[in-house]
């Protein structure tokens, strides 16, 4: 818990997040247009999502299913009776002059998810999850005196996931958002791509002296579209609010915008200028009564979620908690791991390879695990060659990198590059003897008790065999022949 110490007074932050997640449906929430990202402006529009006079929305049932799926995965109650509402405001990217959202009767309520910060587990409450349509995009750059509007995104289904003000530090906020993202990706309801805006976040934050029950005056921060921005903006805001209070000022309720360029939050509008959205029930859509049988069906189709999977990785594979946590942080990663284990890899060995060499190679090439050219069975094949002594553990690192780069199997690479380990004692002994003969002085010193020279001799053997000599055999023979 990051309590901010200032003089004699300790402060703590109270944070709640509103996360907007784009749902991974093929079509928009109220019409049949594609949701594909990055197309020609306004190429994915129709009279409905353009807001032509006379059009009517029809709910995409898949979006409703996704919202229910998310609610069930986060311990929410699924409302048996739910409805849409209109949120009214004028903006060019909002073609109807209102956003179809949910207000009084959201589809999911009263959930929670578990987060882990510094090894401490805690539950963060979810107030509600509701469905709504995304707005389009205004384009101001390179358009001369005019601005343009691209409505491809207008009507893309969103879930707004609102947390309780249970978060006490920027670190917790980030952990919460990461966990939420992981869950959404596990569920297949959101691709979690923050760069493309599939996951966006607004934060409500206030500070108060530690020990005080009442919340301070809260400020809403908009436009937090990366984990780093969430953390930086909240850190900045905590400092700013603390300073205002310490200097005897008052926090005013307002909406602030995070400016990632200058690293500060700036006032966007005060309470007086706050929009009156004039919410009222959407008369063009009938209230939703969700069939309990459908809820059960969705419940039974839920995948294993990260928490459960992490626990299983510990109990089933004997992995340390930290390994299990990392491997389950991304669904494809956990699947890669299990695929490797299923094809015969030792769990801890596989985990080490993933967390070490594989991550390093992926990071270096800026690739995700899904883009990994090295298949789990290729790792396992290679590990078998290490186990049966065909290659040494050291050579394995080279082979692994080679598989990653070329996609070839370990066997082929070893053959091509002549990397087979030399374990034949006779062959190695010849080399060992040659080296001892060539370094008589060092051999004398070793005999005299300078044992650390062992490393020198091993190095010489490896140099000569290009690392292919079986280290164990080399060690044994060196010891024997040096002392003889």
């Amino acid at each position, binding site marked *: 818990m990051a309590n901010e110490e200032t003089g004699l007074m300790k402060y703590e932050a109270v944070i709640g997040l509103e996360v907007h997640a784009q749902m991974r449906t093929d079509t928009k929430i109220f019409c049949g247009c594609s949701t594909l990202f990055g197309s020609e402006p306004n190429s994915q529009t129709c009279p409905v999502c353009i807001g032509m006079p006379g059009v009517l929305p029809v709910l995409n049932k898949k979006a409703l299913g996704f919202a229910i799926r998310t609610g069930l995965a986060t311990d929410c109650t699924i409302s048996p009776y739910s409805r849409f509402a209109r949120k009214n405001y004028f903006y060019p990217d909002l073609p109807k002059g209102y956003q179809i959202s949910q207000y009084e009767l959201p589809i999911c309520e009263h959930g929670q998810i578990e987060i882990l910060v510094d090894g401490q587990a805690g539950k963060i409450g979810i107030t509600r999850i509701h469905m709504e349509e995304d707005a389009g995009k205004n384009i101001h750059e390179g358009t001369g005196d005019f601005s343009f509007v691209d409505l491809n995104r207008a009507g893309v289904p969103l879930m707004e996931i609102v947390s309780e003000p249970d978060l006490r530090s920027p670190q917790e906020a980030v952990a919460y958002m990461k966990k939420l993202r992981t869950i959404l990706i596990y569920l297949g309801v959101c691709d979690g791509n923050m760069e493309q805006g599939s996951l966006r976040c607004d934060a409500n934050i206030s500070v108060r002296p530690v020990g005080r029950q009442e919340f301070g005056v809260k400020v809403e921060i908009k436009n937090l579209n990366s984990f780093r921005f969430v953390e930086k903006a909240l850190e900045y805001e905590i400092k700013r609010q603390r300073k205002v209070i310490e200097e005897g000022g008052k926090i005013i309720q307002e909406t602030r915008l995070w400016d990632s360029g200058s690293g500060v939050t700036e006032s966007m509008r005060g309470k007086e200028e706050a929009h009156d959205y004039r919410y009222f029930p959407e008369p063009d859509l*009938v209230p939703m009564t969700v069939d309990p049988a459908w809820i059960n069906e969705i419940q039974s189709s839920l995948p294993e979620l990260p928490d459960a999977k992490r626990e299983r990785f510990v109990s089933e594979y004997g992995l340390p908690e930290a390994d299990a946590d990392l491997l389950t942080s991304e669904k494809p990663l956990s699947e890669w791991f299990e695929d490797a284990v299923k094809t015969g890899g030792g769990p801890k060995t596989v985990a080490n390879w993933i967390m070490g060499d594989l991550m390093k190679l992926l990071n270096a090439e800026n690739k995700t695990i899904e883009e990994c050219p090295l298949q789990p069975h290729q790792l396992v094949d290679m590990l078998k060659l290490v186990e049966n002594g065909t290659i040494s553990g050291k050579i394995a690192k080279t082979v692994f990198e080679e598989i990653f780069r070329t996609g070839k199997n370990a066997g082929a690479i070893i053959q091509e590059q002549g990397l087979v380990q030399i374990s034949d004692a006779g062959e190695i002994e010849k080399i060992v003897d040659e080296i001892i003969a060539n370094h008589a002085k060092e051999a004398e010193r070793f005999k005299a008790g300078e044992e650390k020279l062992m490393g020198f001799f091993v190095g010489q053997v490896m140099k000569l065999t290009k690392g292919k000599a079986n280290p164990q055999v080399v060690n044994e023979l060196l010891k024997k022949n040096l002392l003889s």
Partner: protein
Amino acid sequence: MSLYRLTISEARDLLLKREITVQDIVSSIFTRIDALEKKVSAFLTLTKDEAFRGAEDAQKRIDRGENKSLLGIPFAVKDNMCTRNIRTTCASKILHNFVPPYESTATTRLSAEGSVLIGKTNMDEFAMGSSTENSGVQITKNPWDLERIPGGSSGGSAAAVAADECIAALGSDTGGSIRQPASFCGVVGLKPTYGRVSRYGLVAFASSLDQIGTITKNVRDSAIIMNAIAGHDPCDSTSAPLPVPDFTAVLGRDIRGMRIGIPKEYFIEGMDREVEQAVKEAIRHLESAGAVPVEISLPHTEYAIATYYIIATSEASSNLARYDGVKYGLRNEGKDLMDMYVSTRARGFGAEVKRRIMLGTYALSSGYYDAYYKKSQQVRTLIKKDFEDAFRTVDVLITPTAPTPAFRIGEKTSDPLQMYLSDIFTISVNLAGVPALSVPCGFTSGNLPVGLQIIGKHFDEEALFRIAYAYEQGTEWRMRKPAL
């Protein structure tokens, strides 16, 4: 023979017998329009070229032996239903140049049955009004007295049908906008049950109240059109997934024993004596045909207008937000975004539309929502319950359609409240969502038509047709034509 005088069933008969061609009827209609339109001003757009092309096509289909229910029938459509590639303005400056790229479901279904569009009719801007004087384009005159209004908001459609400028028309009804002008123009107007006809492509005024319906020369034509346009539409979530009966099947069935409720709240102090007499006479007529009048009460009637003007304006304030100058329609360039919004909407909307947007915006504002919008929804539930209670003891309700006959042009324009009161008998029906039909039931001494309103249970349009047809066939009001 004056072909423009034909009803749908008469025209179909002659077309099938090959006594006339579709071109004959369409020519006759346009000759009639040429002769009268200067006086009546019912149309905003005439689609003559398209109509003759459509006529040729329809005649070919007839010659091939096709037998669709509306094949070759010239239709007029209120200018708030989107027609592909044909200007759709809602009689508003803000949509003066709007050409929809898509077609409403109702007009799609009309075309599927072979109808021929001849033009788009005048209306109160965005259907807000009771006299068509709120049109941003022109004033439509009542064919029975050119000094008088045709009623509204579907005044253009009602006047066109009454003046034989088309065979039949579509209108829309949010608080009486089909029935009241039908009553004032001496034609038959049906507002079906909310959800019976798809609203897809109907430019929204108040989404929970709007309903497309028919304006016809007689009851049978209304039933024929309803067979074509009624039924569930996957593009309108509020359209009812219910089977649609053959509405013509009940025509001619006797009404002996049908219980007709006479709500005492609908015969009030201050209503026109001649209207009252005509309606009471009609009730006696129905009684003599075997129907059983029962006096009943709809106790919350007095709150209908207040309730309506909160719900309708609230929804309208949101529905009309899309007319912002960004995507289509009028744009007034401004020095910045706000300036463009303000000047576009200031110029584009007429006084009544602005008044309603302001009323609705106010009613939905935070701090007022509970007192106005929420309370109205509660009262709406009570009004709905009034009808449910009534329909436990009666089959239909009979009332006047409007408290007065058509009033003079300019008579009520300076007093919006007086104007609102002309919908006093029609508004509850929309709040309750039940169907209602206005059928001519006499004339005042000044030769102005009077309408009888028949209100039915949800989705029981058949009862309306049965009673209305029996009454219409038992009287001779339909024979009278305005002297133009």
